[in-house]
Structures are given as C-alpha cells and as structure tokens.
C-alpha cells in the first residue's frame, strides 16, 4: 500500500517536467509535416498541399547543398579531432606539474572562455583578426601585409576551428584530469624503481590507463558530426565567407527565417535531425559495447 503511494508521488514529481517537454519538444514534431508539404502560412500546416519528397529532391540538386554539407562535416570533424588532442595534451602536462597552486591557477584560466557566450567571444575574435586588429599589427612587424582573415575563405575555417578549441579545451581537460587521478600511484612508483623516465611513464602507464576514456569521448563525439557550431559561426561569418563557413544550421536559419522558405528549411533540418539521431544511437551503442558506458 505504502509502496503504491510512493509510485504515485513519483509520477506527480515527474509530471510538470514531462508536460513542458511535450509542449516544447514533442508538439513541434507535428511541424515536421511541412517538410512534405508546400507550406503556405495562410493555409496552415494541415491546409497546405502535400508534395511528398519534392523538397528533398530539390535539396540535392542545389549547388549550395554540397558546399554546406562539406563545410559542416569538415569543420565538425576538425573540431572533434582537435577537441580530443588538445585537452588530452594539456591534461597530461597539468598532471606532470608539481605545484598545486600553479595547477589550480592554470585550470581557472583555461576553463574561463567556456563560460562566456559566442556573442562575446566572436566579437573579440573578429576584432583581433580584423585588418586593423592586433594580429595584423603583430604581422606587420614582420613585414607582412594586412590579411583580411574574416573575409578569406582560406583563413575562415581555420579561425573557426582554432577559436572553438580556445573556448572549449579547458572543459575537455577536466574529464581527462578526472581519469588521470584515478590511476594507481603504485604503478608509477614501481616504474621509477625500474628506472623508467618521465616519457616512458607517460607512454607505458598514463596513456594506456586512460585509453578507455579517450575511446569513450571519441565515440560519443561521433554523434556531433553534423553540429559544426551554429552560435559560433553565426556570430563570426559574413557573406564573403559563406563558401567556406556556411553550415547546415546557418543555412536553415537563412533559408527559413530570413527568406521564408519554410518547407525547404524544415526539410534540411529534418534531414539533419534524422542523421544526427542515427549517429548518436550508433555512437551510444559503440560506447556501451566497447567502453562499457551507459547514460543510466
């Protein structure tokens, strides 16, 4: 009797949250229909005409679509790779540092950009790389002519990837540091007795010990392959670099909300949602299989 009462209260506790999720996550899914319709705002979702897969076919004939898919995947993959290597390296270096106070200070500084918005950081980055910005001033000391970084299709993706690493690597470092603290110190002690150098300790003890964490994070990042970072690019790009910087999310924003091509934008968005969902499920399956990871 008592037990049933508990379960009833569990349902009551969950109810408000579930209602909000239904209202703001499930109800919008009905709107997916407009990807298969010729949506006219005046006629409503249900009143608009069915067109089947027309928008999807149209999508694949657009010359833009190849570019945006390539940009999205290229930027995302580079971010994922850099987002594993840099935090790992920094965590290894921090782990080797002896002084606690120094470690703490470094950590405080490197997490900081993570907590600032892309509006703020993009503004700072654009300013640094502008033609009159400090980067060009430094270059001019070496006799280099001003480079229009933010208007150059060669430089733009590099700046996007670099500034993303700058913002996020500190946060990734936490997870590796957590894994590093879990290593049994006696392994190092016996290695030192055997005459292992620092490099050998890192190579034969540290890296193998945190291999599962590295694999786990690499696998889970698979699900992000279509997320190249809307907030960042939206705040950093301009029409001159659409060719190298336009990603699926920025395209959907422009096509949908700026140019009012609702159906096309929804079709692109749906394609992205479905592919991302599949990728996340695959990566979760791989992570639970090979890294013994479960969310709950």
């Amino acid at each position, binding site marked *: 009797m008592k037990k049933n009462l508990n379960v009833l209260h569990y349902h009551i506790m969950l109810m408000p949250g579930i209602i909000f999720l239904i209202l703001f996550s499930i109800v919008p899914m009905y709107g997916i229909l407009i990807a298969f319709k010729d949506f006219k705002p005046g006629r409503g979702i249900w009143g608009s005409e069915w067109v089947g897969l027309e928008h999807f076919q149209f999508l694949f004939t657009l010359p833009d679509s190849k570019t945006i898919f390539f940009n999205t995947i290229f930027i995302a993959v580079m971010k994922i790779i850099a987002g594993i290597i840099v935090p790992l390296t920094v965590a290894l270096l921090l782990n080797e540092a002896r002084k606690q106070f120094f470690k703490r200070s470094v950590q*405080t*500084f490197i997490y900081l950009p993570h907590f600032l918005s892309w509006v703020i950081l993009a503004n700072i980055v654009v300013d640094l790389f502008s033609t009159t910005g400090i980067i060009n001033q430094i270059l001019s000391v070496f006799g280099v002519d001003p480079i229009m970084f933010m208007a150059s299709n060669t430089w733009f993706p590099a700046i996007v990837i670099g500034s993303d690493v700058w913002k996020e690597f500190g946060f990734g470092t*936490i997870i590796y540091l957590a894994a590093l603290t879990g290593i049994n110190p006696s392994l190092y002690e016996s290695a030192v007795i055997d005459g292992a150098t620092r490099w050998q300790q890192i190579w034969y003890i540290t890296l193998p010990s945190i291999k599962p964490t590295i694999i786990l994070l690499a696998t889970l990042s698979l699900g992000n392959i279509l997320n190249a970072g809307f*907030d960042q690019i939206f705040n950093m790009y301009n029409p001159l670099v659409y060719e190298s910087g336009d990603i699926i999310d920025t395209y959907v924003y422009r096509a*949908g909300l700026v140019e009012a091509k609702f159906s096309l934008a929804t079709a692109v968005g749906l394609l992205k949602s479905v592919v991302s969902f599949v990728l996340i499920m695959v990566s979760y399956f791989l992570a639970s299989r090979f890294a013994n990871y479960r969310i709950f």
Partner: protein
Amino acid sequence: MVTNRSFSSRLSNAVIVAILTCISLLCIAPLWYTISVSFSDKAAVAAGLVTWRPVEFTLSAYQHLLSDKSFFRAFGISVERVLLGGLINFVLTVMMAYPLSRETKQFKVRNLYMWFIVFTMLFSGGLIPWFMTIKSYGLLNSIWALVLPGAVPVFSVILLVNFFRSIPKDLDEAAVMDGAGPWYMLLRIYLPVSLPALATITLFSIVGHWNSFFDGLILMTKSELYPLQTYIQQLIVQVNTAGMTSEEMKMVAQLSNKTLDAAKVVISMIPVLIIYPFLQKYFIHGIMLGSVKE
C-alpha cells in the same frame, strides 16, 4: 626522491611550467585585451596603440554607457530571465531527477520516462517547427518565450540522476525506517547532501540563460525586448558582418566606437566572472561525480 633533483628533470619541469603558462595566457589574453581597449582613449585604439594595457586610461566609455538606457534595459531583461529561468530549471530538474534515480524495483516505469526525456534531447523537429509552435502558443515578445521552452534541462537531469544514485543506500533505508515519504526524502535528505551537484546544474543553467542570444533574436520581434546578448549581437557583431565589400567593412570599422563596444562586452562578462570563482570548486567535483561512474 633523488631522481627529481636531476638536471634533466628540473629542465622538463621548467618546460612544462613554461608551456602551461603560455597556454593560460593565450586563454585570457584576448579578454584582457578587450578590457584594455574599454579603458583606453578612442583615438589610441583607432591608431592601434593598445596592446596589453590601457593607453591614456579613461573611463569615458563607461560614462557614455551609463547614459545608454537601451543597454541597461537589455541587461535587466537578462537578469529577469536568469532569475526566472534558473528557478524553473532548478525546481524541475530536482523534481525529475529524484524519481528517475529510484531503482526499477521501486519505480517500474522509470526507464520509460528516462527514454522519453533522452529522446526529446536527441531528436527535434528543427528550427522552423519549433519557432512556429512557440508562435502558436502566443509567446512571442514575452519573457516566457525565453524561459519556458528550455524549462527542462535534460542534460542536468541526467547529471543529477547519476549523482543521486551515488548516494549510499543506507541513508535511504534509515530514512524510510523513520517513515519518510518521497517529498521528505527529496527535500530533507537528498538535497542537503547534493550541494556540489546542485551548484553545478545551477551554474550551467544561469550561464546558459545569461549567454543565449538566438531565442531572443527570433522570438522577440521588437528590439526593446532583446535580452543583453541579443542586444550586443545586433549592435556589434551584425555591424561587423553587414559590410559586403571590403571598403564598406573598413568604413564600418572606422565608424563603430570600439571602446564603447568593448565596454559593453566587459560589462556583460561581469556577472559570469563574479559567480565563476565561487561555483568553480563545486562544478569540477559535481561534473566528475555526475559523469564518471564507478
């Protein structure tokens, strides 16, 4: 240890310290530069004289900013959003995490709920249907449009569920013996022992609300209703990117008031900078316990 005092070991220590110092400096140098610009003379900034410290120190940008009503209106909207949104996020996260942290023996449909909320996190209708839904609720141009769609931070719920599960079962049993019901358990037993995790999710939620600009941009049709980040985004970033040709871009760069822009950026960073040190010690602890399971 003798090995630690050797020359090569001391050298590698020095190299490690040097590299880490450089990395730390790289992280904060751009922020420091912006602060320097905001305290510098306009002409000195335009001439490119400002590097790592303010040139011809002046508070004129901040004085100018004080008379800018629209900036503080946007600031106020952001504060309102953080308070409202943070409170709603907190209450809902806690209320959802507790039942979901029960074992399936006690709460059979737990995993059904769990899959449901994870599904809403992973799959979405996309931007356009989301926008149309919120519009159809009549929420456009209301503070609730910024707060309600993100009322349940699913990631935080999962974090807290994992934290609650790491709490020893003995505590549970002892409380049940004393006749504690679910609400009593949650409020009097689980919450007090979960401070690090609660601080973490609160930090995430506050920072998330403070930093988001996009919902403000599309859900508010009047610019006087923009929260701070949207306001800044419209003012600074859009101006920078609006110039199509290089000549136009140069003109825009000369016309815009860099010191004033920098002052706005600095003021908008302050709230995050203030709460960051207080919550940092908790959040490292909290996120580790929430994400790494034994």
